[in-house]
């Protein structure tokens, strides 16, 4: 494994191995001394073309806990016409001696473009590209589900049923999760208004629901809520926040109707009272903070696998 650009880069076994390794990393994160020397002397760049404090922070901690040197480079609104090109930005960074680029970009496919380009030699980790993928989020969600549902640090997710609810069209989390969960044997369904869950998304999942209550009647093991952006209302995807919340929000009453074993997930940041009620978000069934904690472990595992085990780039 040279890069992590898409869940499609991983075989089922590689994905399970990464989750198992993440479980080892979780153990490190519980120690007093949360540090491993494995990436001592390696340099990792957080290359963020789009703001995301939490993801950047999570990768930064992960790299530091493996003793790598981390630098953050925030390049907002890079465009050929407006400023420096991607090629020039990366050329500049690599000239300073870099082993891995953790790339967050507003354009889908940007991480792949860098990985494929003749002008980049670094290992590339996709930390979210446009509305395409966010593979480490997929991994941390699967890790969370595996531990909470199965209580295990090994194996796949055969038989687990997951419902992902919200703005599927614009969600890289929905894509990476569908790809990984299904690879691991889970059944995945999408739910949301048909403007945000186009019929073409059937290529990604097993089923689509346009009625949240009908979907919830199917007793899913996991209900994953996605963040809804205010700008979706401006481009006529949904009428208004209130209608969305009533139709597709995990409200108190919908939460009360869930089995006590159903996990409630959210990749954050949440719009409390819009797509998820505080009662649901703060419940014992909620895994939201575990997801954040597991994010560091998963990113350690990915960095370790790419940089410690594949030799110098």
């Amino acid at each position, binding site marked *: 494994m040279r890069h992590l650009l898409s869940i499609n880069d991983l075989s089922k076994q590689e994905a399970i191995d990464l989750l198992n390794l993440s479980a080892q990393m979780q153990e490190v994160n519980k120690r007093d001394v949360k540090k491993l020397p494995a990436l001592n002397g390696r340099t990792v760049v957080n290359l963020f073309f789009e703001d995301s404090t939490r993801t950047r922070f999570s990768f930064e901690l992960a790299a530091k806990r493996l003793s790598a040197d981390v630098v953050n480079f925030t390049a907002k609104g890079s465009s050929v016409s407006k400023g420096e090109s991607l090629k020039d930005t990366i050329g500049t960074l690599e000239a300073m001696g870099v082993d891995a680029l953790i790339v967050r970009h507003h354009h889908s*496919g940007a991480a792949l473009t860098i990985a494929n380009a003749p002008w980049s030699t670094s290992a590339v980790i996709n930390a979210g590209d446009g509305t395409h993928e966010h593979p480490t989020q997929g991994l941390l969600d699967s890790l969370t589900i595996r531990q909470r549902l199965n209580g295990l640090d090994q194996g796949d997710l055969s038989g687990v049923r997951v419902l992902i609810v919200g703005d599927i*069209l614009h969600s890289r989390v929905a894509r990476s999760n569908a790809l990984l969960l299904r690879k691991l044997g889970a059944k995945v369904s999408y739910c949301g208004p048909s403007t945000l869950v186009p019929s073409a998304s059937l290529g990604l999942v097993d089923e689509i629901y346009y009625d949240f209550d009908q979907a919830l009647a199917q007793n899913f093991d996991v209900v994953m809520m996605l963040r809804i952006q205010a700008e979706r209302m401006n481009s006529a995807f949904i009428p208004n926040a209130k209608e969305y919340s009533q139709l597709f929000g995990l409200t108190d009453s919908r939460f009360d109707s869930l089995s006590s074993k159903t996990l409630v997930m959210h990749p954050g940041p949440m719009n409390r009272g819009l797509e998820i009620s505080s009662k649901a978000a703060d419940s014992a069934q909620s895994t939201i903070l575990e997801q954040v904690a597991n994010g560091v472990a998963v990113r350690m595992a990915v960095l370790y696998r790419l940089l410690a085990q594949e030799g110098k780039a």
Partner: protein
Amino acid sequence: MSHYLIKNAQLADGTVVDIEINDQMIVQVGSNLSSTGELIDASGLIALSGLVDLHTHLREPGFEGSETILTGSKAAAKGGFTSVHAMANTAPVADNAAVVEQVFALGKKAGYVQVQPIGAVTVNLEGSQLSDMGKMNKSSATVTVFSDDGKCVSDSLVMRRALEYVKSFEGVIAQHAQDPALTVNAQMNEGELSMKLGLTGWPQVAEQAIIARDVLLAEEVDSRLHICHVSTAGSVDIIRWAKARGIKVTAEVTPHHLLLTEDLASEYDPLYKVNPPLRTQKDVEALRLAVADGTIDIIATDHAPHPEDSKDCEWGEAAFGMLGLETAAAIAQTTLIETGLIDWKRFQEVLSSNPARIGKLSDQGQELTPGSYANIVLIDPKAKQVIDREGESKSNNNPYAGMELNGAVKHTIYKGTLTVRDGKVLELGENN
């Protein structure tokens, strides 16, 4: 003064003849001709009237880093063309007589093909105020084709008025059919693949809705409408319906929409980013059939050169467009003749006589008979060529690099002047 005798060339109808050229004209066509002119052995070659492109971006003035009228003319000659229509989206925009006269003059000076400027429909391609279409028509460039290509004339009233206005001098509006509201930030064909790749979809209806509206407007005002780069099966159906109704609509398809599909976007290589986008195999098949059954009248290249930097970047930042002049004939042969869909007669219609008729170029697309201008392309139909990324064009955004295509242009003659010999573009002055 040029004087040639082409021996044993096969015409589009299958007959094998000799063709004598003197100065700019064909003077004799027949068997066993003899002449003092230079002999061109055309055994095994197909002779067609020189190809005519109704849709070329020559980029000059304004974007000479991508292409100039000279380099674009050479690329056209290499592709077997004897005329190209230069699109109006230059800088400054060709929305007035001065710009079109300049382009026309530079084309003449280059001398490889007849460069026929297209005028903008609206001032600065902004879609609101009509450009000086009448003055451009009366200018030395005699513009008859008007297009805001790159942008759609989306306002219904402006489109109606434009169609009505050009009627008086038998002009034609060439519409880039793309509803802007339905394609905000659109990146590729809308469907399962765009969903998977997370790229904003360019829905087929955005093209079809404009075509449907425009054929009705053309019917209403009884004027000529041409549809640029038709890309979907649904558009073909609408055009077929309009033609059956007697509406004066003509339509073009690009070589890339006859050959390539959206799957090429899978790796986010901007080489395959084009507008309208590559569609599905089903669309490709419908477009090929439409060329065969007459629904689509012509193949036009939409040759769109871009500098390296505009393609060596993120898909979302990259420019739309691909090269087309040098490979158009081979793609047409590969996708339509080799598949048995059309014969060389239809090939000559869609790549030469029809575009000449739509563009009102009386010197182009003529039958190869005595008295016609000597605009001739000689194609070796048996040749196989592996496409080089670099050609005569100043740009390299060539999506066919490395592909093997059937057929190759051997020689091109523009008004009696040999511009391409044995597949090589000649420096003019070398041979006459």
